[in-house]
């Protein structure tokens, strides 16, 4: 009967783990889908080449489609708003990237407008809007454009015109900031990429480069989901392990009796394995049915499509993983049972099965089936996860031993707790690792959702810049000095350049390719020159005059040092200068900041635009609008809108992660329950002993779990601070420990302790 109870419990755990894994596997699929749609795949074409100037190469003529993007101001009646403007040719969109409400064809003098923008400005079809010098008729609303959602332009809603009107808008001149895009089909992709790489004037779009800093956050979110997925798979493995080890313990006695009665190895194995396999298959079946049911309900609710073919594939992979996990566990457990002497088995004692063998087997299955990262980085990712696990394990181990040591110095109640901590050490360590991972991610998400940009903004002085002006030419920079609100603004010349070598080694080969993927090596960056050091820059080493002044952070991230010679490609010319000084930049000041600053004579020969950041209060914004109406080639970036959009983007990512974490929490809960079930018998025996000795064991279980939660809380806070630094130092937030977040976790822990109290009262005191 007891055997049956444990088999039922193992079946239920299998069903739950199958369900969990199935649902969980949908998240990376969704994330990948998001990535495909919005960032990486560029559905408009298989290969996209971008150039800051019109591409004159022969290859440009074979493009399937072409577009030009820039930022500009849109005027409608009394409203004036910064938008991105994309000028399209007649072949665009190549693959249906632009979704329109009515499907109208675009002609010269006409524009499409983003539906949300139209709604906000109350623009109707047929209305006239002004862009630069041109008045255009709105002919359709854009529902979505896949290629831009995660690009910077997405933060200002867009308007789409005809490329035939390019000259008529008057929004750009030689100094304007805009990009030409050339779209190619897959058949031409490789040859175009080779041509583009040789050309040097253009480059093939790389999603990470396109996404910039937010892209890096996105990539990290994706990696995090991958890591969490692996972590949860391991938690599932642990749950299965613990559950089947209960059956295993029961089987040990049965095996002893059967051996004593002279049953052969084969007969014993069949007799014991058969019911386990049966309950395993039952569990997988129930888990799949439930998982697919819930999945389809969720899909219906979220309006996301996921074909039956994909669902079948998902279900097959999930069941295969669970079966492999279970078979790996059963094999190691069965071997340990066969190795145990009959007399030990008759006393219900069996050699402990090897945790590490089971662990390695589960890890291998996880690594093979659940690569949460991009192709090619699976092993590196797995290595990272393993390293993180080991670090967490070691930290848990040290704190656990410290706790045990402290308790051994204690008196009666401490010793009772010590007894449990020693007996269930391995079990508790597994639980702690799961709990720490869960709590760390929860606290991290709490931070990101509640603080991040809001906190940062609240730290800024009230007169911090709220606008960036980009793409000014020299005459603009001079003429605008007459405005009072612009008079004191520092204007920086900007020359676009691409870093191609460090100490004569190409960036791809520099430091054995260690930094080859860094965004600074893969895009054009803004180079400038200072007449005097701005207040938000501090010279911490060297001399500004004769070489490149590099920003401290980028030097650290790229492993650069003073004396290294950097080579830049500027307008096809190659210039090399050594780094002679290091600057510390206060990025959070919102002032225009630069990684590399050159002596003025170096950049003198090249065409340049001018950039500035400034604070304009509401009463003076009309003056700014007049300037922009007169000079439509100047782009204005509203930082407030940018930050709101960035916060929304973060919210999307954190919501996705939260979904994963909820399931992770369920996994931990299952483990905790199984652990407690595993402990019931030995706890009852201990309880009986204590009672016979007249020792009061009241509250000892609460103290025990409080100690465990204390350890987990300490490590969680540490890991959380590390995660925040790791993920957000790129946007230079000043982090403080969020006490509300910690209070939330303490509340969560108190809830766990209350549950344990209820459990111990109900089951152990009977």
């Amino acid at each position, binding site marked *: 009967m007891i055997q049956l109870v444990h088999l039922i419990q193992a079946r239920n755990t299998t069903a739950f783990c199958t369900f969990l894994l199935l649902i969980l596997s949908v998240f990376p699929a969704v994330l990948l889908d998001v990535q495909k749609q919005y960032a990486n795949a560029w559905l408009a074409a298989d290969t996209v080449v971008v150039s800051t100037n019109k591409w004159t190469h022969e290859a440009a003529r074979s493009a399937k489609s072409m577009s030009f993007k820039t930022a500009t101001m849109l005027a409608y009646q009394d409203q004036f708003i910064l938008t991105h403007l994309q000028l399209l040719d007649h072949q665009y969109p190549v693959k249906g990237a632009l979704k329109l409400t009515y499907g109208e064809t675009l002609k010269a003098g006409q524009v499409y407008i983003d539906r949300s923008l139209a709604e906000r400005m109350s623009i109707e079809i047929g209305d006239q809007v002004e862009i630069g010098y041109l008045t255009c008729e709105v002919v359709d609303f854009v529902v979505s454009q896949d290629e831009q959602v995660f690009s910077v332009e997405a933060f200002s809603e867009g308007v789409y015109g005809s490329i035939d009107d390019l000259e008529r808008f008057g929004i750009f001149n030689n100094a304007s900031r805009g990009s030409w895009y050339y779209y190619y089909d897959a058949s031409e992709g490789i040859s175009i990429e080779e041509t583009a790489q040789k050309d040097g004037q253009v480059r093939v779009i790389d999603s990470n480069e396109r996404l910039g800093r937010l892209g890096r956050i996105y990539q990290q979110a994706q990696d995090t989901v991958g890591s969490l997925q692996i972590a949860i798979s391991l938690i599932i493995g642990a749950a299965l392990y613990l559950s089947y080890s209960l059956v295993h313990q029961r089987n040990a006695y049965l095996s002893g009796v059967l051996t004593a009665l002279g049953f052969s190895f084969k007969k014993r194995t069949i007799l014991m394995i058969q019911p386990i396999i049966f309950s395993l298959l039952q569990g997988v079946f129930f888990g799949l049915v439930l998982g697919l049911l819930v999945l389809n309900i969720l899909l219906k609710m979220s309006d996301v499509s996921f074909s039956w073919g994909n669902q079948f594939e998902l279900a097959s992979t999930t069941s295969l993983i669970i079966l492999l996990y279970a078979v790996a566990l059963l094999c190691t457990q069965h071997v340990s049972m066969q190795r145990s002497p009959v007399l030990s088995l008759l006393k219900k004692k069996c050699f402990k099965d090897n945790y590490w063998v089971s662990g390695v087997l589960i890890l291998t299955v996880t690594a093979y089936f659940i690569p949460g990262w991009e192709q090619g980085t699976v092993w590196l990712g797995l290595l990272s996860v393993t390293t993180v696990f080991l670090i967490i394990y070691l930290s848990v181990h040290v704190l656990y031993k410290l706790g045990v040591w402290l308790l051994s110095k204690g*008196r009666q109640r401490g010793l*009772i707790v010590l007894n449990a901590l020693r007996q269930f050490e391995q079990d508790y360590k597994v639980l702690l690792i799961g709990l720490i991972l869960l709590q760390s991610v929860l606290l991290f998400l709490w931070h990101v959702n509640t603080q991040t940009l809001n906190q940062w903004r609240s730290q800024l002085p009230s007169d911090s810049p709220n606008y960036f002006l980009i793409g000014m030419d020299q005459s603009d920079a001079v003429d605008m000095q007459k405005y009072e609100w612009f008079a004191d603004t520092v204007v920086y010349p900007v020359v676009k350049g691409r870093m191609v070598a460090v100490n004569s080694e190409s960036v791809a080969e520099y430091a054995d390719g260690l930094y080859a993927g860094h965004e600074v090596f893969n895009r054009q960056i803004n180079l400038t020159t200072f007449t005097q050091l701005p207040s938000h820059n501090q010279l911490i080493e060297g001399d500004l005059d004769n070489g490149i002044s590099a920003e401290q952070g980028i030097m650290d991230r790229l492993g650069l040092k003073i004396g290294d010679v950097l080579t830049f490609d500027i307008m096809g010319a190659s210039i090399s200068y050594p780094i002679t000084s290091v600057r510390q930049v206060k990025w959070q000041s919102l002032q225009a900041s630069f990684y590399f600053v050159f002596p003025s004579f170096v950049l003198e020969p090249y065409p340049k635009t001018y950039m500035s950041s400034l604070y304009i209060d509401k009463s003076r914004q009309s003056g700014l609008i007049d300037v922009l109406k007169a000079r439509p080639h100047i782009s204005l970036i509203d930082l407030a809108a940018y930050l709101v959009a960035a916060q929304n983007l973060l919210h999307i990512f954190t919501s996705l992660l939260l979904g994963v974490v909820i399931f992770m929490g369920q996994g931990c809960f299952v483990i905790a329950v199984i652990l407690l079930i595993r402990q019931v018998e030995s706890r009852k025996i*201990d309880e009986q002993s204590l009672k016979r000795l007249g020792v009061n064991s009241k509250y000892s279980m609460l103290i025990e779990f409080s100690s465990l939660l204390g350890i987990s809380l300490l490590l969680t806070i540490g890991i959380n601070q590390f995660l925040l630094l790791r993920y957000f130092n790129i946007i230079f937030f000043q982090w403080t420990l969020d006490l509300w977040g910690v209070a939330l976790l303490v509340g969560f822990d108190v809830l766990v302790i209350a549950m344990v109290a209820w459990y111990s009262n109900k089951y152990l005191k009977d």
Partner: protein
Amino acid sequence: MEGVLLERISKSYHKDGQVIDIMDQVTLQVPVGTHLAIQGPSGSGKTTLLNLISGLDSADSGNIWVCGQNLSLMPEYERTAFRNKHVGLVFQDYCLLPGLTALENVKLVCSGDNQVELERAKILLVEMGLGSRLNFVTSQLSGGEQQRVAIARALVKQPSIILADEPTAQLDRRSAELIMDVIIQMQRQEQVTMVTVTHDENVANKCDHINYMDRL
């Protein structure tokens, strides 16, 4: 009345609808400082008797006086506290906590900051021949060693009364004699009342009195 006094004690168990009588109107007196051995066949109620004296179990009728207190009138939690304070128990199955070392198991019953008791725990274990096993967890000790730890634990608090259920059952003859000598020496020195259930004639013969129990 100090020591132990059982007045017309009856005890029966119910199993599968049947009533099994273990004791009927039993009266027993163990004066302070004496060591009584209880012998008898299996099922005669020897262990039940110890359970009643220690307050682990309660009688159906009659009074149980131990150290001047009537256990029959006490609720369970009071009996538990009484046991902790006055009674040293040696169980047949040791009742050691598996996660604790030999020394920690003995320390477990010591109260608060009593350094004397803690020192005494070490001395007792050394006297029991476990000086080199102080920091071994229970599972690393043999059956005989575990029994000795259990005896040390019963003695460490210098209880008013020691109840031992087959204390030398797991020990070889030589070790059994050695251990019994330690126990009896301590019992006599400190005038502790002691009741020992044993099948071993040699152990019984070392006691002041021997009582025989038979099945009902």
